[in-house]
């Protein structure tokens, strides 16, 4: 993916801030985050409350009031997302930037068949003949490795398993052929064996179509396996940025602490090292 670094970045984010009001005044949950993204796979890792999910939402301008987001620059493929009207933004969401949420149960409409929902996602962004829509839907379901798409399109969300639900979500998000996919904890509601399948699938589709991917997760090892580059967030700030392959060489005490705190398969330690939060709270 490094060969494309010479082009203008797909996403250029400068000094992003997201704040929420509390009884004790406004609190920044994202404090001046900057990064650029090419057509590569970027992982954002952090614990709950680190601001990683808010970052993903802010790119799509989905921070709900009373939350407020501001940034010096959010450029997507040369488009300034901040000055875009809400209507234009809506056209862009889904069509060019898609987002996969954590739990498919809450993201799918329970009273619409799966086929209709995927077709809906396609029709809002492209004008196509009915037969073309149907064939694209089936093709997409096939691409996310659903065995008999003809049957699945007639099902309702409660009739499918969690893993299949998440694959359907992916199909829905990818059918308009976006340039950037933001996946926020796409597999944490799934079993380990299904987890690997879903991530392999996202990985394969992203590579094939040359999309950009932002994978947001709390799981360091998982992100290291599926991304090119990793940002480690803590308390709204990036504390470490490194290539995924160099994660074990991370220098920041927070990253090192997180890595050490994960139990290993061939565990021999009697006690797990615990993060001493006082050592970097100043940074």
């Amino acid at each position, binding site marked *: 993916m490094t060969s494309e670094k010479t082009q203008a970045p797909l996403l250029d984010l400068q000094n992003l801030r997201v704040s929420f009001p509390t009884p004790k005044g406004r609190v920044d949950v994202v404090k001046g985050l900057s990064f650029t993204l090419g057509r590569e796979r970027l992982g954002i890792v952090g*614990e*709950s409350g680190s601001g990683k999910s808010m970052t993903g939402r802010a790119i799509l301008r989905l921070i709900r009031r009373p939350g407020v987001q501001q940034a010096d620059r959010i450029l997507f493929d040369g488009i300034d997302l901040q000055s875009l009207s809400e209507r234009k933004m809506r056209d862009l969401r889904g069509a060019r930037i898609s987002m996969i949420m954590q739990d498919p149960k809450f993201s799918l409409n329970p009273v619409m068949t799966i086929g209709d929902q995927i077709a809906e996602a396609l029709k809002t962004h492209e004008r196509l003949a009915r037969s073309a829509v149907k064939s694209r839907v089936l093709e997409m379901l096939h691409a996310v490795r659903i065995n008999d798409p003809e049957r699945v399109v007639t099902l309702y969300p409660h009739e499918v398993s*969690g893993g299949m639900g998440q694959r359907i979500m992916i199909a829905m998000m990818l059918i308009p052929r976006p340039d950037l996919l933001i996946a926020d904890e796409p597999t944490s509601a799934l079993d*380990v064996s299904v987890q*690997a399948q879903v991530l392999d699938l996202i990985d394969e589709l992203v590579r094939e179509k040359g999309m950009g991917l932002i994978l947001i997760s709390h799981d360091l090892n998982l992100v290291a396996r599926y991304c090119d580059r990793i940002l480690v967030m803590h308390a709204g700030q990036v504390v470490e940025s490194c290539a995924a392959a160099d994660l074990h060489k991370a220098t920041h005490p927070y990253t090192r*602490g997180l890595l050490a*705190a994960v139990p290993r*398969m061939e565990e021999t330690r009697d006690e*797990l090292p615990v993060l001493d939060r006082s050592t970097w709270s100043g940074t």
Partner: protein
Amino acid sequence: MIAISLKNLDVSYGTTKVVEGANFDVAEGESFALVGESGSGKSTILKAIAGLAPDWTGEISVLGERRGHGVDHAFATRCQMVFQDPYGSLHPRKSVDQVLSEPLKIHGLGNRDQRVEEMLAAVGLDRRFRYRYPHQLSGGQRQRVAIARALMLEPKVMLLDEPTSALDVSVQAEILNLLKKLRREQGLTYLMVTHNLPVVSFMCDRMAVMNKGRIVEIAPASALHDGSFSDPYTQSLYAASGGNPDRKD
């Protein structure tokens, strides 16, 4: 002595059988894991032992005594349970103090003030948390309160239902350390349900692997070091959890 013994345990919800023919013994002082994916029936076994899933046949004994089908008063002092979701396992309108005093009141035990203080210290919670409400606590602190509540009656057997799966890794490490320390200090027996194999490797001595309501394999936790499992399902679960990376498919 055998702490928990299951013989031919079948558990059903309505007409569907969720667990079929479960057999295992957990020795006193042992830490035993029930491993499997969602829907494998591992939590159901825990609920049946606790008395929360009364529709079972077979035989369950805890510390040498046969279990009845419901919840009973005397059983409470021998065996307690810690739940998965620290946000759902505490009453939203009760302070930490009330939560910890309640078991003492139920069993008419005195000297409550001192016992609550001691228990807070044992689970590593500062005294200033004593009169806080759940919404003023973090996930890890809530789970400490839930563990403290379970230990108030000084049980010998603890049933742990995914006690750390809802927590961040750094907090998970703290809670796992705490559970390990408590087991050592109080000579507890753990029966722990989890889907996380590395946690088993850290916490447990032996494990039973479940798939679709049946126990497919019982193995020592040390088998996780080299992946020496005999059952194909266990092997695939092991591979998917990141063990033995060359086998990843």
